[in-house]
């Protein structure tokens, strides 16, 4: 399958004012990636990494200082009109909604801006998809964050886009609503819509994305499937031990134990978390730890995307 998005050497810098003096701030240092049709592609990275900048460039909202980007085989600088017609985006958060309009009116307005005629029942279907059908004729001014974000998702689908860009679609949402939004997103990819997603929730990225790029300070650190990214960090295993009589100084001196964290829990017991090389069996680890405490319970867990992420951007 050919790539629907090709990003080549994308470089961008902003001009900022510092103490009244103009300064250049590099946001993207020449990144490369490709996205295939129907993929859910995640952009992860710390605050200020360049995720939103990337999305703004790809959605023609921002002209990059350098590099090539093609979407649907068209250059973003040469054919912004064609691209705008065939993509859509949400920039996360509660903004971007006209308070006095109802969801139906809001969608209708954007259908006019996208120059397409959509019958009311089709608009209702969109609202049903995001679970807002009961609020179709309510003013959006009283909407909660979750409702607004779901309305954005409905808007994003108004022009039957081939690619949608979702910048932090679950930001500030409670776990239940987030789960609903994730469900909606996974439904999109089933319709063969390509989804570019940014998020700070690793579990979400792991659940939703076919592939992920982790960006940090304008550079892509790693790109691949969640399984691949996790596997690159499978040289350690993660242990969680509940124990008593802990010799804190002693345990810190063990060379193989990395990223040790100690927490006091009920009954004066301690909970310790650490990483240990995979080459050792659980028996060996148990023996080692036993020198410094009395083990009550020992758990071992697999590498999560979060572990890999933290290692990559630390």
């Amino acid at each position, binding site marked *: 399958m050919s790539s629907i998005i090709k990003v080549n050497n994308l470089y961008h810098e902003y001009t900022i004012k510092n103490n009244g003096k103009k300064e250049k701030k590099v946001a993207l240092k020449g990144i490369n990636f490709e996205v295939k049709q129907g993929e859910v592609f995640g952009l992860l990275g710390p605050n200020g990494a360049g995720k939103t900048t990337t999305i*703004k460039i790809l959605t023609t909202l921002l*002209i990059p200082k350098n590099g090539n980007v093609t979407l649907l085989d068209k250059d973003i600088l040469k054919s912004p009109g064609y691209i*705008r017609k065939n993509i859509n985006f949400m920039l996360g958060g509660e903004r971007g909604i006209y308070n006095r309009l109802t969801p139906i009116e809001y969608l209708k307005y954007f259908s006019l801006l996208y120059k397409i005629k959509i019958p009311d029942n089709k608009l209702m279907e969109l609202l049903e998809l995001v679970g807002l059908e009961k609020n179709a004729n309510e003013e959006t001014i009283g909407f909660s964050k979750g409702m607004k974000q779901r309305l954005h998702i409905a808007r994003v689908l108004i022009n039957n886009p081939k690619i949608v860009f979702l910048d932090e679609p679950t930001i500030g949402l409670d776990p239940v609503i987030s789960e609903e939004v994730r469900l909606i997103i996974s439904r999109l990819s089933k319709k063969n819509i390509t989804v570019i997603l940014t998020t700070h929730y690793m579990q979400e990225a792991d659940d939703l994305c076919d592939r992920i790029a982790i960006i940090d300070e304008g550079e892509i650190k790693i790109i691949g499937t969640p399984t691949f990214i996790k596997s690159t960090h499978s040289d350690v295993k993660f242990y969680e031990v509940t124990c008593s009589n802990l010799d804190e100084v002693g345990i810190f001196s063990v060379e193989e134990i990395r990223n040790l964290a100690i927490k006091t829990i009920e009954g004066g017991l301690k909970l310790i978390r650490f990483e240990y090389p995979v080459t050792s069996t659980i028996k060996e680890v148990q023996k080692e730890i036993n020198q410094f405490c009395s083990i009550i319970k020992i758990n071992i867990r697999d590498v999560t995307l979060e572990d890999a992420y933290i290692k990559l951007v630390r």
Partner: protein
Amino acid sequence: MIALRLLFFNLIKFTDLRNKFYQWIIFCQPLIFLTILYFMLKVNPAINIDKYIFAVGIISAWSFILYASGTALISEKWGGTFELILGSNTSLFRIVLTKSVCNSLIGLLNICLTILYAQIIYGFEIHTSNLILSISSLIVLIYSLISLGMVLAVLCSLFNNVFEYQNLMVFPFLILSGLFIPVNDLPLIFQPISYVIPMTWSIKSLYDSLIGIEFSYFYLLGGILISSFYFVLTYIFISKIELIFRKTNKIGVF
């Protein structure tokens, strides 16, 4: 067709008639000025009432446009919708134009409402020496107000605190455009400014058509030309605003 539907949508959904300030401008302000006019006429029955009835309507229309069109572009930035409409399939110029047309139509409604008030409540009789010319002048006036609305939308999006000056702009503009005193009676240094304002031309033309002094198509044409010039100018400016935004992610350069 889509353009008309967009205009209709703007008229019905985006005209904020629940805004108390707009209610005041549209429905109450004409009553106050008409009352003043009523007593002026009592004192001096010789004044030309037709001209001033239109003037009252134009005051309200202008006040409404100054605020409503002035915020057309900047309010999208405040609300976070600017990027969404920019990224859509309709050009920014067209979106702002639709808003300006919409506000000018409300302005026209304002003038009509004033005439209605004048006839029904105050019992004024309105005469025109040439109905066709008066209507033509009124159409050109609306055209001028649309172009002026575009200019306002652009200006207010560039400067952060234009709103502080909007109140100060209401009456000077009206005086300069010859609404109360003929432009030729204004101090000489102001006259060039007057003729840069597109309304000036159509107001002169409207007044001439009402009073029935020798009508000159010069002002009618002048109004069309200078307004068209502003359309071209705002088109260039809005394209620039879009380009600057796409380069720097900021609206407004000052």
